[in-house]
């Protein structure tokens, strides 16, 4: 009976973690003025409205830096391999950022950094020219590509750094005007996640024959090769079988059925999974 064979009923849904830019701060050079209005009644007179004195404060330059890797891991590709980062200016003044990059192992070189001039997210040597600095307006961001060459291998980590030029009059904020982010290279053949499914059959009165009344235990093993956000495993109970209530286990811990049964489909939200995580889901179904 093919319906009981091991098959790929399971699915993993996963999204890659993305960076969000910070809201722009009040621009340097802004003058903030405060005036209160007063209303009062003096004896025998009509209500009067008047203004308080106006106090002003000037907003100075605040220098901050931010950088994020567009993806935390990248499959090894042909050298020179472009790795995308986005430099952002969370401060309130136009700021020049000096760019740098480093690899965590000998043999990998990161001599060149290019700006994504046309903003299409793809490195194009014809238009995306090498840069050593980027100048960003407050709240602005710019994607850059670190070109990794040499012996690119899984496990290598490439870090890009943005260091803000700090004018003498500026205040340096909590970031210290310096930020860095890292991309790790992974095996090109490794998908973000894989799901393996196995089953065992316990027939009534013993044995492993798939007969009516036999209980089938399905074991789903999800392995995450990269960081995955909002991972979910779902598996439809085949026709001719019925899910056994209260049988869901996640990593050998029982899970309630509520919210995890969608018709005849078992659906387990795993949440954000770091690279290297392994989760095992088990549930039972009975052959009708």
């Amino acid at each position, binding site marked *: 009976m093919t319906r009981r064979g091991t098959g790929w009923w399971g699915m993993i849904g996963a999204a890659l973690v993305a960076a969000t830019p910070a809201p722009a701060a009040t621009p340097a050079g802004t003058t903030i003025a405060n005036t209160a209005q007063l209303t009062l009644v003096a004896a025998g*007179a009509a209500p009067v409205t008047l203004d308080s004195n106006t106090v002003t*404060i000037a907003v100075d330059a605040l220098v901050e830096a931010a950088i994020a890797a567009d993806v935390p891991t990248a499959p090894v590709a042909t050298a020179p391999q472009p790795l995308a980062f986005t430099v952002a200016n969370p401060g309130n003044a136009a700021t020049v950022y000096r760019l740098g990059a480093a690899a965590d192992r000998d043999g990998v070189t990161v001599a060149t950094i290019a700006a994504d001039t046309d903003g299409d997210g793809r490195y194009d040597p014809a238009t995306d020219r090498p840069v050593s600095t980027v100048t960003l307006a407050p709240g602005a961001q710019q994607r850059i590509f670190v070109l990794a060459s040499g012996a690119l291998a899984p496990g290598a980590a490439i870090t890009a750094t943005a260091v803000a030029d700090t004018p003498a009059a500026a205040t340096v*904020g909590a970031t210290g005007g310096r930020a860095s982010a890292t991309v790790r290279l992974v095996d090109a053949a490794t998908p973000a996640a894989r799901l393996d499914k196995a089953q065992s059959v316990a027939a009534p009165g013993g044995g492993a024959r798939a007969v009516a009344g036999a209980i089938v235990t399905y074991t789903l093993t999800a392995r995450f090769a990269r960081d995955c956000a909002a991972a979910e495993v779902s598996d439809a109970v085949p026709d001719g079988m019925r899910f056994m209530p209260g049988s869901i286990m996640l990593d050998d811990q029982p899970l309630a059925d509520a919210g995890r049964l969608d018709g005849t489909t078992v659906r387990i939200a795993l949440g954000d999974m770091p690279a290297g995580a392994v989760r095992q889901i088990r549930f039972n179904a009975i052959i009708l």
Partner: protein
Amino acid sequence: MPIRPLLLLAAAALAAPALAAGPLQVTSQVMVEAKQRAADGTTRIALVPAQRVVPGDRVVFTLAYRNTGTQPLADLVFDNPVPRGVAYRAPAPNSPAPELSVDGRRYGTLAQLGAAGPDAVTHVRWRLARPLAPGASGTFAFHAVLK
């Protein structure tokens, strides 16, 4: 006496322009929180006059008032539009809590206004429940943060 109403009329006419500079003295001030390291190694937060600030700085807006006239002043209302670039946070310690508004028309608490948080506040207002006696004074203050 026929002359008396005439005098009263003159006094009333003078009262309005005189008020702007006269019986109610109001001083608005902005202070910024500055961390100061004491000799014993501890860090204290001091309020210093704010002339130059950067986003994220915590500031305190203060309204100090005094009745410098000889008559009580009634129905005193202090309305402070929150300046652009500033986010209201909370009443200052030792100051009565202001009524808040997110549109300059309706006033209440954040909950009454259905506001998600203090960032939405556009105006703060204080009302004196009793007339301000001659010579009496007080202060209102609120904390804010530079956006």
